[in-house]
């Protein structure tokens, strides 16, 4: 080590000490588990205490298991299908609705801040709590909403029928629109007023202004929301569990989300569960890459 390097190190030692706790935290609680899980994914092993080793090295066997073994293949593709179905339907609906909600809440009306806070509040509640609450109010026998619907002649079965499970789940998920809404609001505030004024002078109506000014300027946010939604939706888990209770992945596996499949294998087939996690990582990465590659439609203003 040269004397100048030593000097530099001595000068920066205080800084290194400041960041050390964070670096240690990342290494111990993020990097090590990821590496450990990656190594485990090449072994057929149940969950064991660290240090007890693994059972059998199977190479890429755990990665191929989802395609070669009828039982695992069925679970894998069912869970993937359920997750993709949810992503394909929920993401567009939630984006459109949260955008419209933001447009409404962006109006200069007295007391609008109150509404903004209220619509954001459900996002602050942990998924477990909202899941339990909805579990209670959609209870097929005692549920308040169920009873109310029955009184007007609608027998909605919520999670008691495979056919209604996904729709019910999506409906309940829509109550967390506030998360996307707040981002839209931030973006809407950035749209220069002068553009609307010019458009008004040119005779453009409200709808034309929305389509030709608001939406194009919001495209970076659309891109961001799409990517974050994909990541979030592919990892759907806790709300399903608390909503469906003992039924877990729903009747007839109608809510067997991908992460449920990982969870089901987490103990007795730990190595396979790790492989599934990395497959999910690859899927999310691939989807994100596709979205990024096809993002020419995103319009960045001069300010970026």
């Amino acid at each position, binding site marked *: 080590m040269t004397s100048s390097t030593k000097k530099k190190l001595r000068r920066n030692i205080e800084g290194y000490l400041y960041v050390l706790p964070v670096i240690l935290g990342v290494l111990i609680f993020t990097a090590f588990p990821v590496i450990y899980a990656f190594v485990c994914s090449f072994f057929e092993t*149940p*969950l*064991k*205490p660290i240090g007890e080793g693994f059972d059998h090295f199977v190479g890429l066997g755990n990665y191929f298991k989802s395609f*070669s*073994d*009828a*039982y695992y293949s*069925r679970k894998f593709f069912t869970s993937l299908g359920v997750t993709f179905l949810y992503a394909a339907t929920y993401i567009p609906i939630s984006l459109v609705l949260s955008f419209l909600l933001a447009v*409404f*809440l962006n*109006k*200069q*009306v007295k007391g*609008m801040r109150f*509404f903004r806070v*209220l619509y954001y509040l459900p996002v602050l509640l942990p998924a477990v709590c909202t899941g339990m*609450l909805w579990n*209670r*109010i959609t*209870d*097929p*026998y*005692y*549920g*308040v*909403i169920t009873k*109310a619907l029955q009184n007007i002649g609608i027998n909605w079965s919520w999670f*008691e029928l495979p056919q209604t499970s996904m729709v019910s789940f999506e409906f309940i998920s829509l109550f967390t629109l506030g998360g996307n809404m707040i981002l839209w609001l931030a973006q809407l505030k950035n749209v220069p007023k002068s553009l609307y004024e010019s458009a008004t002078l040119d005779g453009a109506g*409200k709808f034309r202004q929305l389509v030709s000014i608001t939406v194009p300027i919001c495209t970076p946010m659309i891109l961001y929301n799409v990517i974050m939604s994909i990541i979030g939706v592919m990892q759907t888990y806790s709300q399903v569990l608390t909503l469906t209770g003992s*039924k877990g992945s729903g*009747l*007839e*596996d109608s809510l067997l989300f991908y992460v449920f499949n990982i969870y089901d294998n*987490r*103990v*007795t087939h730990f190595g396979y569960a790790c492989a599934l996690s990395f497959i999910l990582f690859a899927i999310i990465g691939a989807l994100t890459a596709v979205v990024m590659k096809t993002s020419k439609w995103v319009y960045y203003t001069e300010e970026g």
Partner: protein
Amino acid sequence: MKKFCVLLMSSIMAATLALSCACSIDTGGGNENNTPEPEEPPVVNEGAEVELTVGTLSYSDERTLINRWINRFNKDHPEVNIKLTHQMQGMPDTTLWESAGNMPDIMWTAGDQHSPYSGYYHYFQDLSDEEKFPGSAEFFSGFYDSLIDSTHFDNTDKGIWFVPRDYNRLVIYINKTAFAEAGVDLPSNNWTWTEFIDICNRLMDKGAKKAIEWKQWRPVYTTMLRNFGGKYLNDDGSLAIDSEETAACVDFYQKFYNTTRSDTDNVVGLAIPGEGTAFKAYPGSVIGSVPMVVDVRPQLPAYMAAASNGEWELEARSFPNYVQPDGSAGYVGAGCSGYGISKVCTDEKKLEWAWKFLKWCMSEEGYEVVSNLGNIVPALTSLRDSGSWREYDYYGATVDAAAFVDLDNGAQSIFLNYQNSLPVSKQDDFILRVDDFWKDVRTKSYADAVETLRQAYSALMK
């Protein structure tokens, strides 16, 4: 536009507020309210000579039950302090505890799921060991045979890895009010399968939505299959699913649910799948109702609560006797939960008290302590026709206790661990594949479902 926004927002807010208020109203549902007895605060023996930890299922009913036993035992034995410290969602959680080096001394187990944990991971101690657990042989001689069968981890094993807690024979819960309206007499506990089907048809004729809610559940599948003469596995562990008997069972099952897709069949299904929800949601008339459900004793308080809230009367009957072609009695699955002593409980004193505790819980005195919870049929044959468990009532309403034991019913109790002829390490996985088989027969042909199971079995046994 502004006015419209305000109006829209206000309407949505009003609806949300109304629902929020409605949510805070106690509707009387859920596990917390099914049992009239509140959960007791723990009795703690500070400075006790021996400390024992217990792990059980996280459900409210399970916690209440074990806490009742713990509290009474702690009260009577100040020298020991037993604590409920661990809660699980299911058996795999025990492996998480083990991995973390934090296993309790006493652990709950499901009778049909303990094998890998007893015979492969070796989490439980063999309670048949007279040296470690004095009086074991005499103690276990008092239990139902089918329950003791389920304590072994495979067909060759003679060990007893947990103390069976309850005797869960399949029963049929009946909506007495709907039966009366339909003019259908209540069957006796000695009813046969033929009478059962006849009653189902009569209820359907009277406008029932379906006659019975038939749970899609392993004990139900196994009971059905056995009654039809089929089986999953041979004694040597080879697959035995493809047989005329199984085909007949599947054929019945498909028609029972009316899942057959052939329009020419013109079969009206008598059953719907479910977990008791349709049965509980009695619309006040036999028309549109589901007046029967197949289930077990632990669900009795929930059905009692539903009947009480819905102002209808509940009754229970034994599972119908599916008389065999040779005239012999049919079969009905009987399973259990239980508690084992874990491998970490090695200290002599701890072991002694853990054993004492479990023996006391599953004694006549112990069962008395929990009898008014209503969800336990004692695992002891001596309490078959006595004990206050038979007198359980829900605000005055009762059901026939004889339905839960085989006093008046000809059908024989069978233990449900069909997977026991396989190596321990394969058993859990095989059960999951069989579950898929029953899912398959609802959507595929019998031949396709068998082929899928055969492939899954081959892959598993490789």
